[in-house]
């Protein structure tokens, strides 16, 4: 198994073997490949970038070029066990609607995102008064694909307001996990497992 990014490793470790999975924003298909090869999952993907789609097809993966904001509508209700959105929520036009779509298509959804309330981000804003450029947010504000920055607490509030159940949550600092209580300050990124309860 190839070495997965920490948030992908959390997702891969917590997907039930043999399940049907839709990876939205699957990139070069690394997670799908791991799920297919190590967990016998029937993994499908969606990806915006055509070069990445080509890479996925070359790995024998089934990936559709599409846009999470527009093309999820064409997937049938409850057609997969897990809909996965890793590091993509903050790039969508309407993260709230995308979230609803994930839980319409999947019985459960994994969502991972970078936490904008991490202390390094806060320091950058507080001391330098500048939009942060960090390890996880490496691109300057004017060219970043991240158009909807959010924090762990923002996300918690959104899912609570939409009546979405949190079945699991993992908070990562580097490749180490940190406690839920300190997550909004200490976590670089978060992984949530959601369901309609």
């Amino acid at each position: 198994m190839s070495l997965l990014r920490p948030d992908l490793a959390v997702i891969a470790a917590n997907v039930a073997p043999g399940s049907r999975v839709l990876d939205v924003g699957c990139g070069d298909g690394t997670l799908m490949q791991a799920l297919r090869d190590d967990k016998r999952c029937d993994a499908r993907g969606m990806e915006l970038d055509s070069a990445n789609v080509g890479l996925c097809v070359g790995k024998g993966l089934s990936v559709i070029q599409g846009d999470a904001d527009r093309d999820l509508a064409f997937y049938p209700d409850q057609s997969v066990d897990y809909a996965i959105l890793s590091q993509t929520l903050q790039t969508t036009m309407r993260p709230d609607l995308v979230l609803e779509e994930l839980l319409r298509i999947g019985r459960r959804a994994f969502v991972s995102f970078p936490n904008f309330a991490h202390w390094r981000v806060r320091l950058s804003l507080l001391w330098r008064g500048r939009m942060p450029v960090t390890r996880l947010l490496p691109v300057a504000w004017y060219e970043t694909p991240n158009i909807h920055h959010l924090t762990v607490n923002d996300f918690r509030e959104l899912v609570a307001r939409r009546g979405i159940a949190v079945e699991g949550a993992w908070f990562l600092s580097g490749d180490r996990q940190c406690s839920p209580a300190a997550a909004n300050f200490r976590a670089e990124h978060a992984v949530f497992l959601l369901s309609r309860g």
Partner: protein
Amino acid sequence: MSTPITDAAQVLSLARPLPLDGGQSLADVRIAYETHGTLNAAKDNAILICHALTGDHHVVSNHPKTGKPGWWVRMVGPGKPIDTDRFFVICANVIGSCMGSTGPASLAEDGKPWGMRFPVITIRDMVRGHVALLDALGIESLYAVVGGSMGGMQALSLAANFADRTRAALVIASTARHSAQNIAFHEVGRQSIMADPEWRDGDYYAHGKGPEKGLSVARMAAHITYLSEAGLTEKFGRRLQDREEKTFGFDADFQIESYLRYQGLAFTDRFDANAYLYITRAMDYFDLAEEHGGLLANAFAKSKARFCLVSFDTDWLYPTADSRNVVHALNAAGLPVSFVELSAPYGHDSFLLDVPALDRVVEGFLGEGR
């Protein structure tokens, strides 16, 4: 032990009449085809390539009339994306055509050319011919069926209507149904042929001259739909043909005029006007959803195949939306499907031309990560 098969065009004569969608059946059908590579002992490495409207089975061998290289030499061959070292590649001329398979220029029972007595055929009828060929070759299930444009329609039709006959389908620059615009362009072509007095209601074979004017105009109109505006502008712009000034006449002053006239004329040397009528009709009748109760997803209810669809951003004949429509149906049917829109400047013709990204997708999809 695998049986080596030589790279030569062959002709299969069907023992039984071919049933047609129009209700008739066609007797004494001949199917011209070419094979490359070696069929393995399990007979599970065969790929059927389906050709486009004016294509033929000479996918890699030289065209017998024009002497030009096969129409997909860049894609098919040893070590190429459709690798004949690994796959047994079959390409058959569709029925209704004029390159060796039975069509309107073939002789009917009375020893005279069919002409307009030839029954109207459909894409599914063409596929019935392919399936008869697979039967004759002893191939129960294809590794994949591959086609661009009208070839893609055949690939979709085969995967839908003969679901157990293929394990994968690769559909390039194609559609599951002909749009009003598609039909409109074809009708211009057909009317152009039929308006030529030399057409003689399709009974021109004995006169030593066919409706060449009409056929060449049909080809000129169709040729425009295969290219992109940007491609035409880049290749020809408003440049004049071998002259410094406009002539204030109706000669081919512009390079684009000269080019189209040449394309039109060259086409009449290699293609039968009636075959053009019949094949364009088959394409116009194509609506895979309509064949299956109006819902495209239902067309694939029996399929277990993997699918890959490819469109090109400059193709306005079968635009990306047409491919997406198929992808959504396959998704709804729960089938494994990949889709990519590639960027290429050549319009619809991109599937035949130098687009390295297409090579990678074709090789990747057929290679399955191997």
